[in-house]
Each structure stands twice: as C-alpha cells, then as structure tokens.
C-alpha cells in the first residue's frame, strides 16, 4: 500500500488554499481556451506554459494539469453544442453528442460527459498508481509494428461509422486519406502535393478540416434546411430544470460504456504515439458493436458519447505512464509537459519518479484534483453553456462562423488554414447534401498519417516483409486483439440471438434502417 500512500501524499500536497486556487483558475482558463473551436489541451498548454515559467515547479504543474482537463472538457462542450471538436480526441464525441443536443438534451449530454470524464479520471489515476510499472513494460514493447496495429484497430472504427452506407462512406474515408498525404513524406523526405507552399510542408492539419466539415458545414446545412426561421425549440435546456439532469435510463444505458471506455482508454493511452484519439474512436466502435440498439448510434445514443469521453480522459492518465516512468512523451500534450519539465530543471527519464517522487506524485495527485474540480465547476457551468442552446439560430450561426475562423487562426496564426477550414465548410455542406459521411473523412485524416508512418517504418525494418508482425510477441497479441475487434459485432449478434427467446424476425424495430 506504499503506492496508495504516495498517491494520498500527492493529493495532500495539492490540498493547500493556494493550489486549490491555482486548480480552479487552471480549469477555468483551460475551459475558456478549450471552448474555442480548434484549441484543445495541447494548444491550451502551449499557450499557458509561458505563464508558469515564473512559478515554482509544484504550483506550475498543478496549474497545467488543471488547464489540461479544463481544455479537454471545453472541447467536449463545443463538440456537443456546435458539432465542432477542439482536438482530435473529441472528434468521436460529436458523433452522438451533437445529435443529443439537437434533440434538446444538451444538458444531460454535458452532465454525462462530465461524469464520464470524472469516473475515467478516477480509474485512470488508480491504474496509474497501481499498474504504472507493469504498463511501462508494455509501452517499451511497442515498436512501429505494434503502433501500426493499434492504429489499425482505430481505423476499424471506420466500418462502424460508415455502417450500411458503404460506397459513399468509403469515398468519404478516401478523401480523408488523400488529404493526409499532403506534406513532407516522412519516408523519403520529399514534398507531396504542397505545390511549393511552405505552409503545407507539415501537411494539412486535421483541425481546420474538422472545424470546417463539422462546425461550418453543419451551420450551412441547418441554414439550408431553414433552421434560421425556426423560433428555436432546438436546444431547449432550462437552467437545471427537470430536463437538465440525465434520466435513469441514461445512467443504465451508459454505465458499462463508462467502465469499458475507462479501461480501454487507459491502456491505449499508454502506447506512445497512439493515445487519446485512437482510444476514443475505438471506444465508439466498441460501444456500437456491443450495443443492443446499434441503429441509434449517430442519432443521439448516450453510450456513444459517454464511451469516447471516458476513453479520452483515461487515455490522458495512460499517457502519463510513459512520461513519468520512462520519460517518453506519448502525445502532443505530454510533449509540451516534457518541455516544461526541462524548463523547471527536471531531467526526464526513467529515474524521474525515483529522484523527484514529490513532484511526480504531486502531478498525479493534482491531475486527480483537476478532475474533481472539473466536475464541481461544471455543475455550475453547464447551465450557462447549455443556455447557448437557447439562442435563436439566426443569432448563433454568425457567431459560430466567427468563432470557427478565430479558433482556426489562433492555432498556428495561418491564414491558409483559415482558407482550408472555409473550403471544408463548403465541402461539409455538400457531403451532407449528398449523403457522404464527414466523420469518416476526419477519422481517416487523423489516423491515416500515423498508419502510413508506422507501416513504412515497419517495412523498412523488416526489409519489406510482412512476417515481422508474426515474429514479435507484442504484435502477435495485438493482431489477435484486432481480429477480436473485427469479430466483435458478429459475436455479440450471435450471443444475442441465442439468449433472446423471441425469434429474430419478430423484432421489427431491429430492422428499421435509416
């Protein structure tokens, strides 16, 4: 129980009035930055990191942990309310979060997301404290072949997202993969499709594309359907009225999604380079596969929001495993934190925890307190955010467009990206009009480059042979996991058929397909 006492010490360390103040301020600042479309945790950390240079490391880390969670949740708020993810890890939250908001259930959706984040944060912190040494060993068994398989597991979600709409879905995904090839080719160092533009040498970032396809595209689509004429019933959430709280059914439906998402998120988050995005997308496909009513996914199924939210939050704790136990950053956000470590004079590496236990456990403790603070603050804040929903659409639409432009510009200060965002807005509109699937495009764009990079690395190492996947123990177990994920929908269907007493044919609502 040495470890748990460490954790308690870490939390205790963070429980002074000053640190509580820093926590509150951090969560709020993070949330404000995160609510800007396009600005997620890594951007919030990068923006606020210089603020902490003057502080002592203990206080600085508390504040940054709080900023991290605040920004993450801020991204969820925009995903749910205006269909605009703040970073790749909250893309999956738009799939069902936004439909829920459209049904007037923004309040319950945000509360469930906050609770899911809190539960996942708790599970993640406990796993981080108890299992860090073991999971660190797992992380060091990950080379390019293993990372490739993890990304493939994430890509399987495309099948679930596309559903029955196979042809248009495949084209949507291919658009994403095509966009992903722009930029310097990591294998040969040559430029692809940059047309000589230096702005494009790092490729097309998913942020302007996601903001355009989801945010602006949705605004255009709603206008096209006459949304501006309606005297909004649309997002009807009265401040903490009876419809603000989730219903008993919401809880029942999504409690296991929360647990599955937490564990899945933590372990996927441990793999450096894969992290929260893959975890949340995987969680979405797992939830849809095991669901009794998969047809409700994409139309406002609570587990479809709760699972990915739990997963991306737990992945945050997971990403701390390689950072703290190995000194290896697993994600963009942890890379910024690592920069912070250096600045505060700490040597990142396997000895970090041993040599600076107070610091490491203080970080873990404050991450947990950041979670608690987030839940508390949100009970007060959600009605305020959800009341955005009561603004008539003809007022809201221009504001969303302005926020989308501003958010895109703020990330890299690039006007080219604003152009990409607006072009994708138009593309998003036509994709909706003709039944394409923007979500598939974005998932392909996010995961495509990772898949390409890791596969090419794998093949350079193996001299072009695919047998390398069968030669490494870690990759063999991952291959099995990928196979299992593929079979999961079939298995659940078979199990359900056997357990249900009624013949399948007599369940008419199972066959209603839209």
């Amino acid at each position, binding site marked *: 129980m040495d470890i748990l006492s460490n954790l308690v010490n870490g939390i205790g360390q963070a429980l002074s009035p000053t640190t509580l103040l820093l926590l509150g301020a951090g969560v709020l600042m993070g949330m404000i930055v995160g609510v800007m479309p396009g600005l997620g945790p890594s951007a919030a950390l990068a923006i606020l990191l210089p603020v902490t240079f003057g502080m002592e490391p203990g206080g600085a880390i508390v504040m940054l942990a709080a900023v991290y969670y605040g920004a993450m949740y801020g991204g969820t708020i925009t995903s749910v309310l205006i269909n605009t993810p703040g970073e790749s890890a909250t893309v999956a939250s738009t799939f069902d979060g936004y439909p829920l908001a459209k049904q007037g259930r923004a309040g319950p959706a945000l509360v469930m997301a906050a609770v899911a984040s809190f539960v996942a944060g708790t599970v993640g912190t406990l796993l981080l404290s108890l299992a860090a040494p073991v999971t660190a060993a797992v992380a060091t068994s990950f080379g390019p072949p293993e990372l490739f398989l993890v990304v493939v597991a994430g890509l399987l979600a495309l099948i679930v997202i596309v559903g029955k709409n196979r042809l248009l879905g495949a084209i949507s995904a291919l658009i994403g993969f095509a966009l992903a090839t722009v930029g*310097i080719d*990591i294998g040969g160092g040559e430029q692809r499709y940059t047309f000589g533009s230096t702005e494009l040498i790092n490729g097309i970032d998913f942020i302007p594309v996601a903001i355009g396809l989801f945010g602006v595209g949705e605004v255009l689509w709603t206008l096209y359907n006459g949304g501006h004429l309606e005297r909004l019933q649309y997002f009807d959430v009265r401040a903490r009225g009876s419809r603000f709280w989730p219903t008993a059914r919401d809880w029942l439906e999504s409690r296991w999604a929360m647990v599955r998402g937490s564990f899945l998120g933590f372990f996927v988050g441990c793999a450096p*380079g894969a992290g929260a995005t893959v975890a949340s997308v995987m969680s979405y496909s797992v939830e849809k596969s095991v669901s009794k009513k998969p047809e409700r996914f994409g139309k406002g199924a609570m587990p479809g929001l709760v699972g990915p939210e739990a997963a991306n939050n737990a992945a945050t704790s997971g990403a701390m495993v390689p950072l703290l136990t190995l000194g290896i950053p697993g994600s963009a956000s942890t890379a910024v934190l690592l920069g*912070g470590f250096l600045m505060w004079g700490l040597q990142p590496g*396997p000895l970090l925890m041993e040599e600076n236990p107070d610091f490491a456990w203080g970080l873990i403790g404050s991450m947990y307190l950041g979670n608690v603070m987030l839940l508390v603050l949100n009970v007060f804040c959600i009605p305020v955010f959800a009341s955005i929903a009561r603004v008539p659409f003809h007022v809201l639409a221009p504001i969303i467009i302005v926020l989308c432009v501003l958010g895109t510009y703020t990330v890299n200060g690039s006007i080219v990206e604003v152009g990409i965002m607006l072009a994708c807005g138009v593309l998003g509109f036509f994709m909706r009009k003709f039944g394409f699937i923007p979500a598939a495009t974005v998932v392909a764009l996010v995961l495509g480059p990772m898949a390409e990079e890791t596969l090419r690395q794998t093949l350079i190492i193996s001299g072009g042979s695919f047998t390398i996947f069968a030669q*490494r123990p870690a990759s063999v177990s991952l291959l099995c996991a990928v196979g299992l994920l593929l079979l999961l929908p079939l298995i659940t269907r078979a199990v359900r058929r056997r357990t249900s007493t009624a013949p399948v044919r007599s369940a008419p609502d199972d066959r209603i397909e839209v």
Partner: protein
Amino acid sequence: MRKRISALLMVVAAAVSLTACDATNAGSGETAENYPRRELDWTIAFGPGGGNDIMARTMVDLLKKNKLYPEDIRVENREGGSGATGWGYLFSRRGNPYAISTTSGSFITTPLQADTGWTYKDFTPVGLLATDNALFTVSASSRITSWQQWVEHAKRKGTVAVGGIGTINVDYILHAILAKQAGYKIDYVPFNEEGPLQTSLLSGALDAVVSNPAEIAGQVQARKMTGLLYTGKKPLGSLPDIPTGESLGYKDLPSMPRGLILPPKAPEFAQKWWIETMKKVVVTPEWKSYVAKNDLTEDVRWGADFSAYLEHTVTELERILREQGALK
C-alpha cells in the same frame, strides 16, 4: 456592388501602405550612436516549450536581468512550416535593426526540403553560441557496451536498422557517415517524434538510434540504453564517459547551430552592437548553466565565422544527402 469592391480595394491599399510605412520607419534615423532606442521584436520560429523557445526565452531573461537591452523586448512565437513561417517573417523585415531571431537545426534543413524563399545566406549573422550534438545509443538489452562491439555486431548482422528524427536531417547524415566510415550497412528508419523513436529502440525493433542528449540522457543514466558515441567535440558534461566521435577517429561529424540572426541587410552598427552584447551574455553563469543543463556544446563564433560555419555545415549536409539519394 462595384462601390463595395472599390471600397474594399481602398481598405486593402491603405493597409498595405500602412504596413509599408511601418517597415521603413522602423529602420530610419537609427545610427550607431542612438541604437538601440526602440522595442525589440524577437521571433521564435517554433511553439512554446520546444528547444528553440527555451533558448530564446533564456536569452531574453538574461538580457533583461543584466539590463543589456534598454528598451522592451516583445517575444513572439511565429510557428509553422518547420520554422519557415517565423524565419520567413524575419526575412521580410529586411534592413530592420529591431527584428531578431534564434536559430536551430531547422534553420539549415527546412530550406533544403522546401522552397522557403530564403536560405541561411540571406540573413545577417550575429553569432553561433552553441551547437546541438547527438548521442548514439543502443538498447541496454543488446549487451553492447562499446563502439567497437557495435561495429562488429553491425558487420556480423549485415544490415542494421537505425533510427532518427526526419529524413532531410542531421540524424540521417550522422548514421550515414558513421556507417560508411566504419564499414557497415544501414537501413535508416525516420520518425516524426522522439517518443516512438525511443520506444522502438527499447522494444528491439531498431538496433540503434541517434538522439538529442537532453532527451535521451535520462534513459542512459537509468541504464535502459547505452550511449556509445557522442558527436560533440568535447565529452558531455552529464555523461563524461561516452567517447566523442573524434576520439574514435570520426572527423567532421556535423552539428546543428544554436545562434542568433538579424534580418537581411541589417545595418552594420546593429550587427556590431549585438555581437558586443552577446559576448557579455555568453560569459554569464546563467548561460553556462543553460548550456550544461540542456546538454549543448559551447561553440562561440561571431559574424563572418558563424556564416562560414553555416556554409560548411550546409554544403556537407547537401553533399551527403545527394550521395544517399535523399535529395535530387
């Protein structure tokens, strides 16, 4: 409609002329006697928290603390395109004595892989302050403990898989030079990020990597990895037992410049002023401790000597990349 367009054009024209005024004004009336008398515009071509950012902010702190720069210093992260945006901005401040920026490896490599419109030759050099060198490491589980053992192992294996960051980058060149001179063959595996590179080595997928010592020294100290060779001229302060490339007989291993530059055609008095000022900065204990803490190698060269260093490094990089077929 036409009215609107012409109004728009007028606004654009006004904006253009305003910015043009700004650019010319900033440089006018400055003489060797009154320089510096305005706010300094300090460009960091990368985001907060990275190596370039830390170096720039350390310098700015020292300039302020020792009251070396009399006016305000405005620090801005102008990131994008692997430095192309930030240094492109500095490039556009032609002749302006109040714009300045710090360099790192991308200052050399980005123009090699993209049409940036500028190269190192365009800027007014202040000085090289330190260099980034690399540590050649293998996984501790390989049981290789010396460079000689590594070379034998590599020759026995035929071809070894080695990793580093990027393709048009010094990491690739170092691997290529070492392999050629020692007489073994490599498959070079490029990575985008440090994290996956390090776990790939630990997982046994790679035989060896070169990496930034500040980021990998922790692994060596914890005995998860073994450092075999350091490419700097002097041994690393934090890991003094690792032999340098030169002591093992490898000459001319390239390094990456940590320096300071002014815009193209910056006035000579400004260049002189900065050289004199930076001479005071590099002897402060704070600067020395920054260099040691970040495992940089002190290498100070002013003005034309800095240019000569850049030219030598770039020519070498280009020659070897062409030899390897990575550049055409």
